[in-house]
């Protein structure tokens, strides 16, 4: 349906349909974020021998996040006197918008996708890079020393981990011969890329955790060192924008991992009767659980060790993976 709309002549009706679809996606994602945060708190609680949210919305604290967001909405919006006002105001938007924009190309199932563009993978990586600008802007505009340090760390970290992230998926692009996410999933019909590209998977997982600024790579907002890092001066809903963008990215990154390595919506053998959407959700949840698990278990890296690890370990490994993949592909094609 979207394909037809994209090719049709522009008009008010088409615009309205697109707008409604976008709003729908927004609510789906916000719904996920609401329960994603709740599930993270519950899983963390379970791993740390405590209960987690259990007051708002019944025994399971189902409405806890809703209450939190409402609280943030009605909080006072403070802007420091010495802050760079326009930049300070626009920074959360710059950080937040790309996190939604990247979702447009995600094929959740073979039918549920908003834009099936030829360079979907490239699009994701390019757009997600914009968030860094928002984070650095926030750090700079706050006119706070901790925020500045956090913003600088964020810039250094996100740039240096974007490279291994991109390099790790080159192997998959070689195997598929396409940057289109649909075709990448289609290529995994028989065998998932996690089997064919285990090294790439590990590099991708590590780099994606770093991209998400989560433990053990949460240096830009290292609580015990930089208090809160780049968003230390933000309050109310501006602060919530940063937090939301982080969780939307978690959503996007888990979806991308599922698509690239875990076969997207493809079922396991003999279990094809379960709908594709369920398969996707299941694999996706496993990735999310894994991310939470890491967060609960590991301490934080140091800034210089992080850089060293990114450039001296992850990047060479990713490059070697490309080389080996290309070599093996040639050999097998000759056979």
């Amino acid at each position: 349906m979207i394909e037809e709309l994209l090719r049709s002549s522009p008009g008010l009706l088409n615009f309205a349909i697109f707008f409604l679809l976008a709003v729908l996606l927004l609510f789906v994602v916000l719904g996920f974020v609401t329960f994603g945060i709740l599930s993270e708190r519950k899983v963390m609680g379970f791993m740390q021998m405590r209960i987690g949210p259990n007051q708002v919305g019944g025994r399971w604290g189902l409405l806890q996040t809703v209450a939190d967001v409402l609280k943030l909405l009605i909080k006072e919006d403070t802007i420091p006197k010495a802050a760079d006002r326009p930049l300070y105001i626009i920074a959360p938007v710059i950080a937040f918008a790309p996190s939604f924009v990247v979702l447009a190309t995600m094929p959740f199932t073979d039918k549920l996708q908003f834009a099936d563009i030829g360079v979907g993978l490239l699009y994701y990586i390019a757009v997600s890079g914009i968030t860094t600008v928002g984070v650095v802007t926030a750090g700079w505009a706050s006119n706070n020393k901790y925020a500045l340090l956090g913003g600088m760390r964020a810039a250094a970290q996100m740039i240096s981990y974007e490279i291994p992230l991109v390099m790790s998926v080159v192997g998959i692009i070689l195997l598929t011969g396409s940057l289109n996410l649909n075709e990448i999933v289609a290529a995994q019909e028989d065998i998932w890329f996690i089997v064919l590209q285990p090294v790439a998977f590990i590099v991708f997982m590590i780099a994606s955790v770093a991209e998400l600024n989560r433990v053990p790579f949460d240096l830009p907002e290292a609580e015990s060192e930089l208090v809160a890092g780049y968003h230390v001066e933000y309050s109310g809903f501006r602060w919530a924008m940063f937090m939301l963008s982080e969780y939307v990215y978690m959503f996007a990154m888990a979806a991308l991992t599922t698509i690239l390595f875990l076969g997207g919506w493809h079922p396991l053998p003999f279990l094809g009767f379960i709908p594709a959407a369920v398969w996707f959700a299941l694999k996706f949840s496993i990735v999310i659980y894994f991310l939470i698990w890491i967060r609960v278990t590991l301490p934080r890296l140091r800034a210089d060790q992080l850089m060293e690890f990114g450039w001296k370990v992850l990047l060479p490994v990713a490059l070697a993976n490309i080389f080996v993949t290309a070599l093996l592909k040639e050999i097998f094609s000759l056979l």
Partner: protein
Amino acid sequence: MIRTEEMLLNVGPQHPSTHGVFRLVVKIDGEIIKEATPVIGYLHRGTEKLAEDLQYTQIIPYTDRLDYLAAMTNNYVLCHAVETMMGIEIPERAEYLRVIVMELGRVASHLVWWGTYLLDIGATSPFLYAFREREMIINMLNELSGARLTFNYMRVGGVKWDAPEGWIEKVRDFIPYMREQLKGYHQLVTGNEIFLNRVKGIGAYTKEDAINFSLSGANLRCTGVKWDLRKNEPYSIYDRFDFDVPIRNDGDAWSRYHCRMEEIVESLKILEQAVEQFPQEGPILARVPKIIKAPKGEAFVRIESPRGEIGCYIASDGKKEPYRLKFRRPSFYNLQILPKLLKGENMANLIAILGAIDIVLGEVDG
């Protein structure tokens, strides 16, 4: 040309990792610390001056508030000083109770250190695990003294409350449980590659430095000096127990970590023996006069607190209040080496180094 300049950064007094109201003024160039100046005194309550107007028994609650993570040792050092001056013989049962609560306090204090240190380094779970075990200790001490943190438990001549029925058994049951949990701690943290990278070789100093800066406790033992007052100058009944003094030789945060973790094991050993030898009957308070008056003169005693050597000096002119009271507070002395350690380190190491010293601000500021 890009103009660069050093930045003056106030770490604290409100900062999540200063463990209280400690302020550190650091000059940083990028993330590298050029100079660090500790500023203390935000929690100063003038304990020593206040004590000059208080009777000896009234001073005890003030000592609780010095090192609030190991209040029992503070209670003890004051009582011990007065007892030394008055020459009081302490009943057997009271001595055992004192040793048991002090060693429980030591375990609890090291658990808090372990949890908060890992929290500083960025791991959240160890904190909750450590507090789960500490909670058990606190509950036991609560049962004994009626307070969870500021116990006010010891008196000149003994202790205030006898152990309730079944309390000793609780302590006995706790020992194997704690040993089991320690295994889990090591599995979770000690071998972790990231943790090793964060603490190995960080904040290292030599034996000579440690002695010159008058460090004590694990901060001294991590450089290879085998100095523990429980062994070297046994007080109370510590000479009856068989335990080791764990030492390490590198003098870095990793060594301090090991020293403290092993001290928990040694404390459990002492507890095990103390519970075994605990006398069934007997008084818990020696016969002391209603109003305690230390004889004219002065005395200085020192004991091993979880943080190091805590000392108490009393000068008395024979009245019911001391003429002058002074505490040698180990955290305060241990903190002195910080500016030297921080020079040239980066911001992330600041937290790792400060945390490894294990200060309690109540004690630093007095």
